[in-house]
């Protein structure tokens, strides 16, 4: 069965610091990759997604992620975080042709301090 690992469960950064959140998945076939964000008191929102093409994808609010197939990774980055980026971040994967079913990582709680 497919699995998704997020290495950092809790991250605390100061404003303007750079962010990188790790995500690795176990499936060897073709996958679609997603990062979702859940701000305090809000529901899950899509941050960015990768289906095919350029492995560096850009999402909302200055986030980007890079798909490295050889490493089964899809790490999320932001060069300079803001206090408003405080949220929980989830990596998710589905198998191409697998009926849209998502497998989620355990999530990373990011706190950005002023």
């Amino acid at each position, binding site marked *: 069965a497919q699995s998704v690992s997020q290495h950092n469960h809790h991250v605390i950064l100061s404003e303007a610091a750079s962010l990188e959140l790790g995500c690795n998945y176990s499936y060897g076939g073709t996958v*679609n990759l997603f990062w*979702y964000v859940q701000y305090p008191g809000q529901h899950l929102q899509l941050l960015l997604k990768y289906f095919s093409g350029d492995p560096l994808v850009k999402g909302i609010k200055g986030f980007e992620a890079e798909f490295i197939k050889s490493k089964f990774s899809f790490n999320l980055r932001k060069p300079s975080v803001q206090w408003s980026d405080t949220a929980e971040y989830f990596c998710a994967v589905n198998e*191409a042709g697998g*009926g*849209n*079913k*998502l497998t989620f990582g355990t999530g990373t709680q990011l706190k950005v301090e002023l």
Partner: protein
Amino acid sequence: SAVISQKPSRDICQRGTSLTIQCQVDSQVTMMFWYRQQPGQSLTLIATANQGSEATYESGFVIDKFPISRPNLTFSTLTVSNMSPEDSSIYLCSVALRVGRETQYFGPGTRLLVL
């Protein structure tokens, strides 16, 4: 995109009772799903709600415990039956407009506490 609403937003229930959660989408969608997020854990897919036929359940989830209905392309219900404290979770509905390379959109969730 799709706008999803869920009812109730939260509930406190007694052991042994059942609760039905409703999910309403503002447009017709092909795929609807139900997920569970237990305290301190990630989201786990319970089942795919199929319009006009029985839901497709993931390993570890059964129809007797989590009966699902999907009468049309904009609405689904999930019932949590014969509840125990272990069922305390957030239950989320999600949708995808089509099968394939599609984004899933999530509802606000139903926060359930079973005493």
